[in-house]
């Protein structure tokens, strides 16, 4: 079906993914609407986010039908970003501790 660079697939698969993305978006909105807190909230947000991102890349952007050379070249490098995120998380934590050490707890009062 998918010959070189020609990505033509049945319409039904797009319509199904479309519906699925709507459902997943509703779910992720409901996470906020219902007001889940803590680890339950964060894990639900991440699950719905990765599911949506995965369907968009795999089906809408046709990555599922591309050759593995292209898939690895595009999806491989972003893995490096996990190191950046990890390092910046450690750095942010350290900055917070330093600030608390020098300035103490916040004295901010919200205007309303």
């Amino acid at each position, binding site marked *: 079906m998918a010959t*070189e*660079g*020609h*990505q*033509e*697939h049945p*319409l039904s698969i*797009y*319509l199904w*993914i*479309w519906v699925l*993305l*709507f459902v997943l*978006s509703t779910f*992720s*909105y409901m996470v*906020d*609407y219902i*007001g889940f807190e803590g680890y339950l*909230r*964060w894990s639900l*947000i*991440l699950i*719905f*986010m990765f599911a*949506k*991102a995965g369907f*968009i*890349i795999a*089906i*809408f*952007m*046709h990555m599922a039908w*591309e*050759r593995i*050379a*292209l898939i690895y*070249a*595009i999806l491989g*490098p*972003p893995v490096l*970003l996990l190191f*950046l*995120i990890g390092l*910046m*998380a450690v*750095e*942010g*934590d350290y*900055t*917070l501790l330093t*600030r*608390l050490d020098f*300035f103490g*707890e*916040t004295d*901010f009062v*919200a*205007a*309303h």
Partner: protein
Amino acid sequence: MASDVTESGAAAATVPEGFQGLTRDWSSDKQTFQVPWGKAMMWIFLLSDTFIFTCFLTSYMNVRMSTRVPWPNPSEVFALSFGGEPIPLILIAIMTFILITSSGTMALAVNYGYRRDRAKTAALMFITAGLGASFVGMQAFEWTKLIADEGVRPWSNPMGAPQFGSTFFMITGFHGAHVSAGVIYLAVVALKVLKGDYEASGNYQIVEITGLYWHFVDLVWVFIFAFFYLW
């Protein structure tokens, strides 16, 4: 090892030197990606864009983790009231659905492009561009409300951590610029499809390449929605 040296030495003697050699070495007369060059280049551009947006979101994570001041609650900041009780994040939810809808129409446009159905392809692309334009319009409304009514500035805001403003304007602004550019891109390609510019070659690959960009814009919004608005 020794055989490697002699092999590369033998190869160097047969290939040209200078700039000709440079292009020859890089192309190597081989094709890596079995897709049209335009599509490969769009993917590589999107890869670089991924790094830019990740840098924005990572710096947002960093400042949000490191501030002593409580972060403004996005659920309340972006709530909107239609006469009654304010509904949390409602405008953002509508914007999310609009962008997903536009991704769907774009996917259909690609499909009709390959069937060489010019009218349907162009119509679906114009619908996609229209939905994108309405997304930007809602974003303009959201910014206006935040700046004029809520007093959010890049350096301060009445609700909490001052970094909220700078990260919000940077991230959503950069995304909004991508949507705006995408609307123009879509309109230009749709017009060319309608005019029949691709009929001679019968090659509607450009619709898919435009689609890749548009789906990427939707993809970035998925991450912004999760990390900035929902977290």
